[in-house]
C-alpha cells in the first residue's frame, strides 16, 4: 500500500510539473549559466526547537540529519533569526539578506531584491532556473519577487504550492458538504474538477508567470487525472511535505534549476497542539531531506556541483512560556530565535562545526558568492548579512 501511494503521489507530481512545461514561454533566450554550473538548494523547514532536533533528547527524531548528513557537512549550531519570527518575514529575510518587516500573511512582496532576482538578472536566466516550492500555507506567490523597481517580477521565481492544491480540493469538497468516501469517490471528483475550471494558475499555486492565466487543456487533463488517482487510491494520510518533495524532485529532473528553494511545513501542526504530530513532521523532514540529497547525487546535473543548505526558519517557544510553548513561535527568546543550519556538498566539502554565531541574513550573500554574483548591498539603513564562514566559495 505504501509503495502504491508513493507511486501515485509521484505520478501526480510529474503531471503537475508537466503543466508548467507545456505552458512555459522562455522569458530569456540568451542565458549565461552560473559559475561552473553551480547549483544551490535551500531547504527551510518551519519551526523546530533544538529540543526536538540537535540535542541529547532530540536527535532520535532526526536520525538522517544527525547520523548520515552531519558528518559530511558544515554545521552551524548557532544561527540566529533576529527578525520577525513569522514564516513570510523569515523566508523573505533569508532570501533577501535583510530583515524584512512585512505583512505576515504575504500581502506585500519583500522590500529588497531576492536571490532569485539577483541570480536571474545577473545571469540573464530564464524563470525555469529559479523555483520556490512550498508546503507552507502562510506564504503567497509574492515571496518570489521583490517590490524593488529595477528587479521585481520579471526576474522572479516560479512559485508553486503543491500542498495548497490538495488542500483546496479537500476543503472545497468539505464546504460543499460532500465527504471523501473511499467507496464512492465519484462524489468528490466533480468538486475537484470544478476547482480546476474556476481557478486559474493562482489557485494551483503557479505564479509570477504573468502572461498565462490558465492551464492549457492538456495540463488540466493531466492534473485532473492525477487528483483522481490520488483520491481514489489513497487510504492512508498523505502529508503535504511528501507531495512537495515529489514535485521538487520532478522539477529537479526536468529543469535542473540553478536555485531551488523548498519550504516544508508538516511540523507546523504544532500550532494545533499535537506534540506527537509535530515530532512526526520533524521526522518526515529528516527523511525527505535525506532523500532530496540522495536524489541530487543521482542526477548528473547536480552531482558534484551542488550545495544544499537546510535549516529551520526558527525554533519554537520554550516550555512554560506565556505563548504556550511548542505551539507557537512568537516569543522573543533563545528557544525561538536560535536555531541550526547544515550545509552539504560543493561549498561545504570540508566538514566542520562552525561555532561562531551567524545570522540567517548571512545566507543570501553566501549563496550570492557561490554564484559569483555581485553581493547584495545594504538597503537603506537596513542591516545586511555577511558571507558565512567555513565554506569554500
Amino acid at each position, binding site marked *: 500500500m505504501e509503495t502504491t501511494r508513493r507511486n501515485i503521489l509521484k505520478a501526480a507530481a510529474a503531471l503537475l510539473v508537466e503543466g508548467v512545461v507545456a505552458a512555459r514561454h522562455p522569458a530569456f533566450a540568451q542565458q549565461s549559466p552560473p559559475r561552473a554550473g553551480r547549483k544551490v538548494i535551500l531547504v527551510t523547514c518551519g519551526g523546530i526547537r533544538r529540543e526536538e532536533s540537535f540535542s541529547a533528547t532530540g536527535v532520535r527524531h532526526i536520525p538522517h540529519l544527525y547520523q548520515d548528513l552531519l558528518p559530511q557537512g558544515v554545521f552551524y549550531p548557532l544561527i540566529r533569526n533576529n527578525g520577525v519570527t513569522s514564516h513570510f518575514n523569515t523566508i523573505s529575510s533569508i532570501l533577501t539578506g535583510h530583515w524584512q518587516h512585512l505583512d505576515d500573511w504575504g500581502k506585500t512582496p519583500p522590500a529588497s531584491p531576492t536571490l532569485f532576482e539577483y541570480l536571474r538578472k545577473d545571469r540573464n536566466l530564464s524563470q525555469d532556473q529559479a523555483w520556490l516550492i512550498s508546503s507552507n500555507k502562510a506564504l503567497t506567490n509574492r515571496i518570489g519577487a521583490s517590490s524593488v523597481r529595477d528587479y521585481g517580477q520579471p526576474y522572479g521565481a516560479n512559485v508553486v504550492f503543491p500542498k495548497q492544491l490538495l488542500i483546496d480540493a*479537500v476543503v472545497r*469538497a468539505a464546504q460543499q458538504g460532500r465527504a471523501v468516501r473511499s467507496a464512492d469517490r465519484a462524489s468528490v471528483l466533480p468538486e475537484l474538477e470544478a476547482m480546476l475550471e474556476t481557478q486559474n494558475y493562482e489557485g494551483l499555486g503557479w505564479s509570477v508567470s504573468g502572461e498565462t492565466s490558465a492551464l492549457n487543456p492538456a495540463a488540466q487533463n493531466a492534473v485532473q487525472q492525477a487528483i483522481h488517482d490520488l483520491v481514489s487510491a489513497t487510504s492512508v494520510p498523505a502529508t503535504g511535505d511528501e507531495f512537495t518533495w515529489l514535485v521538487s524532485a520532478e522539477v529537479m529532473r526536468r529543469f535542473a534549476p540553478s536555485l531551488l528553494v523548498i519550504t516544508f511545513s508538516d511540523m507546523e501542526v504544532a500550532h494545533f497542539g499535537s506534540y506527537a504530530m509535530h515530532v512526526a513532521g520533524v521526522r518526515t523532514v529528516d527523511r525527505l531531506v535525506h532523500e532530496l540529497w540522495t536524489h541530487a547525487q543521482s542526477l548528473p546535473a547536480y552531482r558534484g556541483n551542488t550545495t544544499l543548505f537546510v535549516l529551520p526558519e526558527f525554533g519554537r517557544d520554550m516550555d512554560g512560556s506565556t505563548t*504556550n510553548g511548542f505551539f507557537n513561535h512568537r516569543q522573543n527568546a533563545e528557544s525561538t530565535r536560535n536555531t541550526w543550519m547544515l550545509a552539504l556538498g560543493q561549498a561545504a566539502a570540508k566538514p566542520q562545526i562552525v561555532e561562531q554565531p551567524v545570522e540567517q541574513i548571512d545566507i543570501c550573500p553566501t549563496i550570492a558568492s557561490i554564484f559569483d554574483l555581485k553581493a547584495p548591498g545594504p538597503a537603506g539603513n537596513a542591516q545586511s548579512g555577511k558571507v558565512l564562514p567555513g565554506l569554500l566559495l
Partner: protein
Amino acid sequence: MTIPAQPSPAADLAAYRRLIARLPVTLRPELNARLAQWPTLFPFEQDQFAAFLRGIQSTPSSQLDALTRPLWDLETRMGVARWDFSQSESTVENASLLARSPYYPEWRQQVDRFFQAMEHNAQPSTASQPGPAQSRLVLLLLPEHLPVDPAELDQRWRSTGRAFRIDGDPQSLRRLALQGQPGTPSLASVLHPAEDTSQLWLIDAEDALARDAAPALAASASSLSFTGLAAFRRQFLAGINTIPRNISATDQVIAQLRRQDWSPWYPAALAGQPRLQQFVLNLWLSGNGALIFPNAFVEWTASEALRRARPRMLVARFGMQTRPKPFTSIAIFEDQQKISALPSVDDPESSALDAVMLSHYIWLAALRYPQGDNTFCLCIAEHPRTAWLVAPPNRWPAWAPGQSIAPQQLYQWLAAQLAS
C-alpha cells in the same frame, strides 16, 4: 479622578476608560477590550485589573511620564497616528501593523517595561479572593486507555517531581477526589468555597469528570468537556472556516463570531453561566488547537483558567484522539467528520504522548503565578499505575520515591495537606 477600591460598575468603568485614554495609543486596545468584558471577567481578574488601574492612577505624574515617554516617541516614529489602529480591541490588523514596523522589537521592550513597572505599583484591594498562601491543587489525569510511556513521563517530571507506584485501582483516586467517602470529604469540598464557581475547574477531554462528580459539586464548579461542547465546536469551526486570507476581513469575521448569539449551541451545563460562556468563546477565538484536538483543548482551557481565575483546585483529564483521516492531515483545520466518511480510528500512542507533554504544560502554567508556590500537583498516569507528585517546599510526604502507595493513602495525605 479616583479609582475606587470596591468598583460599582457604571461610574467606575467610566473612570477606568478615562484613565486608559491617557495612555499611549498602542496600550489602549487590550485594556479597553478587558474593560468591555468586565461583567464576564472572573472575580480574580476584576480585582487584578482594578488594582492595576489604581496602580497607574497612583503613580506620580513624573514617573508615569518617564515610563510612557519612550512609547509615545516610538508611536510617533512608527506613524501610529496614520494607522487604521483599533483602540477598542486587539485585532489581527493591529498586530500586523505593529509587527511590520521596524521599531517593533523596541516597542515590545518598552511595553514590557511599562507593564512591569505598573504591576509593581498595582494596589490590590482587601477583596475576598483567596490569597496566594492558601493551599491549592492541580490534579492531572491520564486515563487507563492511554498507553503512557513511563520514560516520557520521567523526562518531563523528574526535575521537579517524585514518582510513586500506585498500589490499587488508580481510578479510585479520581472518584475520591470528586466524591469523597463516608467520613472523609472530597478534596474538592476541602478546597472549594461553593459560592464562587471559578475556584473549582473540571476540564475533560471526554466526559468522565462530570459523571463522577457529586451533583452538588458539579453545580458549583466550572465544568467544561470537549465532548460536551461538540455541537458548539462544530458550529464555531464552520464559522472560523469562512475566514478568507485577508486581514481586515478576518477581523470582521472574528467580530461577527464574537457578537453572534451562540445560546442555541451551548450545552445545557453552561446555561445561565455567562462568564463561562464568554470564556469558551474567547478560548475558541484564541486558537491553540482547542477546537481541533481534545487534549489541546484540555491544556489550553486549563492554562487559561489558571491565568484568569487562579482556582484553588483544577482537575484536568486527558483522553483519546483519533488518527488523522486520509487527506485531513493536509487540511487540519477542518472537521474530520465532515471531510471524510471513513470511520474514526483511535490513536492511542499519539494521544498518550500528547497527554504527557500537555499535562506537564498545565503544571508549568500554574507555576507562572504566585499561587503556584503553594500548589500541589498530582499527575496520575493510570496505565502505568504511576503518580508524579510535586509539593511546595517542606510539604513533601515521607515516602521514598518509587515506593508503592495505595490510592486511599495518597488521598488521605493530600486531604490533610490541603486542609492545613
